[in-house]
């Protein structure tokens, strides 16, 4: 448990360092992109659906899998759609 807590706390610090430098212009893509990353829960859902015997775990896992996949696929795609709109202006003379 302490080991997991260590990973958690250190990752929070890494996140803070990396993300506090993201400019305001990209805050919306940051939210949708990081949200897609939080869809990493999908690997937990896959294991719940694929490896447990009981119906309880399997059906909960299936709903979780659908929700997590929406989150991951939709999140990364919509972030990509947004980011391709951000363009630099013509170089000034």
């Amino acid at each position: 448990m302490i080991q997991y807590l260590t990973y958690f706390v250190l990752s929070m610090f890494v996140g803070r360092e990396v993300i506090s430098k993201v400019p305001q212009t990209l805050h919306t893509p940051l939210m949708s992109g990081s949200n897609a990353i939080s869809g990493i829960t999908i690997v937990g859902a896959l294991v719940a659906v694929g490896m447990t015997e009981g119906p309880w775990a399997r059906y909960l896992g299936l709903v979780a899998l659908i929700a997590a996949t929406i989150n991951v696929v939709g999140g990364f795609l919509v972030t990509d759609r947004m980011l391709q709109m951000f363009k630099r202006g013509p170089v000034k003379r």
Partner: protein
Amino acid sequence: MTIELIDLAYLVAAALFIVGLKRLQSPATARGGNQLAALGMLLAVVATLFLREILSPVEVIVGLGIGGLVGLLLARRVRMTAMPELVAAFNGFGGLASALVAAAEVVRATGWSATLTITISVLIGMVTFSGSFVAFGKLSGRISGNPLSYPGQRVVMGLVTAGAIAAMVWAMAGPAAVFAPLAPSLFGVLVLTGLALLLGILFVLPIGGADMPVVVALLNSLSGLAAAATGFVLGNTALIVSGALVGASGLILTNIMCVAMNRSLLNVLMGGFGQESDISASSVAGALDGRTATATTADDTAILLAYAQKVIIVPGYGLAVAQAQHQVRELADLLQELGVEVKYAIHPVAGRMPGHMNVLLAEANVPYDQLFEMDEINHEFETADVTLVIGANDVVNPAARHDQASPIYGMPILNVDQSRAAVVLKRSMRPGYAGVQNELFFASRTRMLFGDAKDSVTALIGEVKEV
């Protein structure tokens, strides 16, 4: 061996997430960064599927198929103006998935500490889920965006929270690993689920529209923390690391939003801000301390703009409502052809989510190097010949600087009142979200151009062409 390979794949995925987020520090590298993070996710999923040999159950294919299709359609179809509610909805799906994965572990949990992590995960995930969908309803206009408060609000919140904690304790106290409908571990989690859903609804309902940037950022953070909590349940470091990254990201944004409104998170969450606007009769009629606002016309404004050297445009939520971003870009292009320097000033809480205005203007092909953050541009208003305020209100109210009695006192604002002239595009003299009349509108250098933002800007385009 297989387990080590999976863990290795998860480590690579987590590294790709961090590098991907790092590349979001510049618009030039951001798209590649997002794709790198997506690659990391693909790697984690493929490793899980193949190395654990769980390709066979039809449920896996069904789940991935349905989820992928819905995600694809949502991402492709959504209009850019609907982005705040889509982000809220995706947060909700993430929270739901984390809570359900944790709940699926209930029957296997042995010992109170395992059940504790499950209940924490269910609590955070379900609050994120219901809270996000209330936010979705408010942002898309399906639920009234007004702050909704009721008598005894804090008492009800306190009772529901206490009930949720009691359900957590109950679930932990019960004998573990029993699958029966009334077993405390299972029943406790079910009760907790219900109360957590209620808590999420109660937490977002009282919060008004203009405070939504804080709520969306906070829910973003919670969706990450829910994934991390599920990582503790499963003993999965990929979930813990990725969840913590997202949790930290959301917290940073939440903090930026609160600082930009000079309010504490608690103050925002208590809700009801600006609902009982004490509008005196005189301010409704469009007067403040005996001064009246001066209206102007599109052709006068066009002349002002066309002969200016420097114009600053201040967009606000009204621009998003009127969907006038394309017209604004066209107007800016025209002015630039006439040799006018055009810049955009973006307040951190303009709109309904962090970065809302930037996405809207990017959609209209406004280059991001013409967009400036508050601190970058505030000293430039003095040298601006005209500032065009389009659908922004409280964030340009000079009362925030000096009127200690004002509810927005202390909030950092854009110094529009320092520019040589200001033209405010607005439907009427109705006060902004904070419920106070805006001093800027009554300043001697300010003119009001009444009407729908899109219509007004279209008229301006026509007039500028004729100058």
